[in-house]
């Protein structure tokens, strides 16, 4: 691991003013420390922001929920307002990582965690995300593509975003508060994470030195919701495909609101706008849900070896929506 200096920032302003190129913000460290040990990340300065950003969850009078960027995952999932009003989010967080890691990991860090693509994590391999211009081993002949993207990827990068929490936040339409050298701004989800295009080294729209200080949820959507994750073992594994779904059915039996976000399929938590548009106003039937899923996955371009994810994503959308419509 490269040697680094360490500072603990007391406020977002202090963290941002301490920042210079080559520095890294430290939250719970569950991803960053691992990447530093692997040599994937090599900051020469670590700015501890766990005391700089809020660690509280508060309910606003406007029905919004404000989540400090330093809130630990376990505290978020266990907060009464999250359990009661945003069960989708509680479920997603509880489905991520392990009890130990959820105690350490922060909300801001969860959003900014890096892909678990094995070629990204292996400094002996070419990787356009880690080392721009070096190539993509995941698209080389014989590569293990089982966990790679099926939609929205580019010839430069086929990695997926690993978060469960971010999938729920994408379905819920969270806003992210960011502090930076040029002042503060809001970033709307989906829209925080970006597709790889030709610059996969940039995971998000944040610029160097910007820091997530807070995540704000709009009032919970009407209807029922669910988070379902398909993985290779029952617990403590990343998603092959996951789905955050909200479904509201009117008295006429037609879809009044439908929000779908997929995890494990793309470089971003993938909001399934195409499927949502198809389902809207149609009768809430298995036929409608199948049409919606088909429409979304028309745009899928699986790699040799991960075609199964297309089937899995389609079946997941249909079965979760059927369950919510019951």
């Amino acid at each position: 691991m490269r040697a680094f200096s360490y500072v603990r920032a007391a406020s977002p302003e202090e963290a941002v003013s301490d920042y210079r190129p080559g520095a890294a913000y430290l939250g719970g460290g569950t991803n960053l420390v691992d990447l530093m040990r692997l040599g994937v990340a090599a900051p020469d300065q670590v700015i501890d922001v766990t005391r700089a950003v809020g660690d509280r969850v508060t309910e606003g009078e406007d029905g919004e929920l404000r989540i400090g960027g330093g809130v630990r995952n376990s505290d978020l999932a266990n907060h009464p307002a999250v359990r009661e009003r945003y069960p989708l989010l509680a479920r997603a967080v509880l489905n991520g990582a392990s009890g130990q890691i959820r105690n350490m990991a922060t909300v801001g860090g969860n959003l900014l965690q890096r892909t678990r693509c094995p070629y990204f994590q292996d400094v002996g391999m070419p990787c356009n995300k880690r080392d721009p211009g070096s190539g993509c081993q995941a698209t080389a002949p014989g590569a293990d593509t089982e966990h790679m993207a099926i939609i929205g990827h580019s010839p430069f990068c086929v990695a997926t975003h690993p978060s469960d929490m971010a999938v729920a936040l994408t379905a819920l339409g969270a806003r992210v508060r960011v502090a930076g050298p040029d002042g503060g701004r809001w970033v709307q989800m989906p829209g925080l994470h970006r597709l790889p295009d030709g610059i996969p080294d940039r995971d998000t729209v944040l610029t160097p030195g910007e820091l997530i200080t807070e995540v704000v949820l709009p009032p919970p959507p009407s209807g029922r919701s669910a988070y379902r994750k398909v993985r290779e073992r029952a617990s403590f594994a990343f998603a092959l495909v996951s789905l955050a779904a909200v479904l509201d059915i009117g008295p006429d039996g037609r879809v009044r609101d439908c929000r779908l976000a997929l995890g494990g399929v793309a470089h971003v938590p993938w909001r399934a706008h195409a499927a949502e548009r198809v389902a809207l106003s149609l009768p809430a039937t298995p036929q409608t849900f199948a049409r919606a899923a088909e429409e979304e996955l028309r745009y899928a371009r699986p790699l040799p070896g991960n075609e199964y994810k297309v089937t899995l994503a389609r079946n997941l959308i249909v079965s979760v929506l059927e369950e919510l419509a019951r």
Partner: protein
Amino acid sequence: MENTLVSRVTLVVNGEPRAVVVDNRMSVLDLLREKLGLTGSKKGCDHGQCGACTVLIDGRRANACLALAVAYDGADIRTVEGLAGGAGLHPLQEAFVRHDAFQCGYCTPGQLCSAAGMLTEAGPSAITEELDSDPPLTPGEIRERMSGNLCRCGAYVNIVKAITVVAEGGPA
């Protein structure tokens, strides 16, 4: 000139204040094992995937391998050596012995600290049916909540049994 790559940290480890100078790269796990001679906490994977390094930090279970010591200045740390809080065994340790909850023993300190932390954690898990409930710790709930601790010997059956006994408050 001041060396900015090392830091002085003070931790309370198993009830005793310990002041040490650490390289900023040092994990809490390496600090415990190499600076303080507390080798009960084990290094399995050093990536947060196996749970062998689990300790209680400010009362909550955490992977000591992913915790930079410099970031935990002032923290209260409890390791397997201090789990019982004095002479004798912690009820979990007694239950592990009685129910044969280990074979090689390498994962055991992490299993014990993780279980101790887990038993203080309220609320639902990923498999809990109703989110607004504090469910009883069935074997299924214990398996889900302990999924951050791997046992390569596969002693899970008896680990779950030992934890169940303690969770139910009965004699080990």
